[in-house]
């Protein structure tokens, strides 16, 4: 039985991350090359907007903060530990994370309710949408569970999980500590790898093409077609190169 659990740990904590990273890299490139025009999420805002606000806004705002929190513990673990060196700052950080985690849960609840009840949204919902919604619900519930029951995650993440993730990237996986963690934390980690696997094959792909330039783009882009002749010429239909949309 022990060897069975060791095998499980080896698969989920060593095998799966490498599998996830490979599938994510190859899959993203493959999807961009094959269906470039669909490299985004299908917006349903035209079909229903009122309920969407109470789902999408709390979900995305929460996700931004929680994701950046995880990322900073991964990239600057020393900085996080330094921030946490005063207990009040630590508690401020943890409570902020918890609040935004709850915002994700509230947002997800609204999004799921909307997809279940609105007939127009039902039509444009596919199976992968449900898989993603369930997976993210699992992630946010286990995440809140870990934050509440195994405190203070921001500190032990930086000193226990960050070395583990580094060991994966250094190709010398070391799961001695992570395999001893409670199973809810392991479930949260495995869920995260599963999300990474599914990014190229679901609406999550919009995560890779966030229109960040919306922040500084001009309000309006005006194109003058002074040269009537070249505008009408079939040989100049595409100003730069012919798009490969499909």
């Amino acid at each position, binding site marked *: 039985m022990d060897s069975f659990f060791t095998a499980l740990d080896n698969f989920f904590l060593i095998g799966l991350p490498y599998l996830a990273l490979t599938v994510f890299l190859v899959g993203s490139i493959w999807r961009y090359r094959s269906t470039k025009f669909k490299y985004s999420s299908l917006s349903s805002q035209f079909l229903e907007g009122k309920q969407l606000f109470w789902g999408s806004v709390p979900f995305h705002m929460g996700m931004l903060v929680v994701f950046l929190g995880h990322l900073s513990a991964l990239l600057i673990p020393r900085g996080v530990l330094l921030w946490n060196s005063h*207990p009040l700052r630590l508690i401020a950080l943890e409570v902020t994370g918890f609040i935004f985690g709850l915002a994700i849960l509230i947002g997800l609840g609204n999004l799921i309710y909307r997809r279940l009840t609105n007939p127009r949204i039902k039509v444009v919902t596919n199976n992968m949408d449900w898989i993603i919604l369930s997976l993210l619900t699992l992630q946010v519930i286990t995440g809140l569970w870990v934050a509440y029951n195994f405190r203070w995650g921001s500190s032990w993440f930086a000193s226990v999980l960050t070395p583990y993730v580094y060991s994966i990237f250094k190709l010398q996986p070391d799961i001695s500590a992570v395999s001893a963690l409670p199973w809810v934390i392991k479930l949260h980690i495995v869920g995260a790898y599963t999300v990474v696997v599914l990014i190229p094959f679901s609406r999550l792909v919009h995560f890779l093409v966030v229109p960040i330039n919306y922040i500084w783009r001009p309000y309006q882009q005006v194109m003058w077609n002074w040269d009537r002749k070249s505008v009408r010429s079939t040989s100049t239909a595409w100003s730069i190169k012919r798009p490969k949309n499909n």
Partner: protein
Amino acid sequence: MFVTDFKMPILTAPSHIVHPTGTHQGSLSIPTYNILLNNHMRKSLFSIGLLALMAATALAQGDPTAGETLFKEKCTACHTMGGGRLVGPDLQGVTEKRSAEWIASFVRSSATFIASGDAEANAIYQEYSGISMPDHNFNDGEMANLLAYMGQFGGTGASTASTEPAPSLLEGVGEAEELLGEQLFDGRVKFANGGPSCMSCHTTATSYQFNDKSYARNVNMSYVNLGEAGLKAVIQTPSFPVMAKAFHERKIEDSELIPLMAYLRKLSANSETAQASSGLLTYGFIGALLLIGLFAMLWAKRKTAPVSDSIYKRQIKSIN
């Protein structure tokens, strides 16, 4: 050498044996039957059986020198061979008192072994303040080496601390150290080698609790439960996997150990029980509600109806 001709008894079972479910499995080949049987075994029974089996294969003599190295690396934080008890018992003569299978089961997963209901294992667990020994997944060879090393120490070990108590490490340590210990504990003073503060994982009955739930131990009474020698071993050379990783290459210095122990001594003397606290939950829910309110305010002017809405409504009104 290992016992190589050890046969799993199950493989010699005649194929006409009646399956535990009552169905006749005579037509199945022997390996298939074996798998079926395993599936029907109770989880704990199976694990104990497997452990015993693994231990049995390790009964052969090992290399005591390699065992000594392993013992010093993995066991000395909590155990001695004839030097008195630390966090765990003195292991002198343990190979005479317990069978190799018993020791192997305990070492590989004491929690599983205790849960299986072994009376002796449970007694030891209770005697040592309900602190279960971390699992050590030694292979058969390593276990044989370890047993060979421990077998060199016969007789009975000291069941309690040696008769003349070692001088306290906290001789003449006062309030200044206790305060420094508290600050080291909750992170206000950083450890010289960069280890995380104790409060990252451990709870006590002092302030800054905010949330009393943790997967690590409440260390309020650790000074009493572990004693100075045990505490020193656990803090400086932890064998609990998560703590070992967190302090890997970030050892706590002697100059930090003393204040920490002084602080823990102060905590255990107070004997207050930790107050249940769920500030994280309370403030989390209040904050989430405020956040949703903030979103509503920030996007108060969002478009909630089509631009033609007023025209549409006017037309409907004029028809009626």
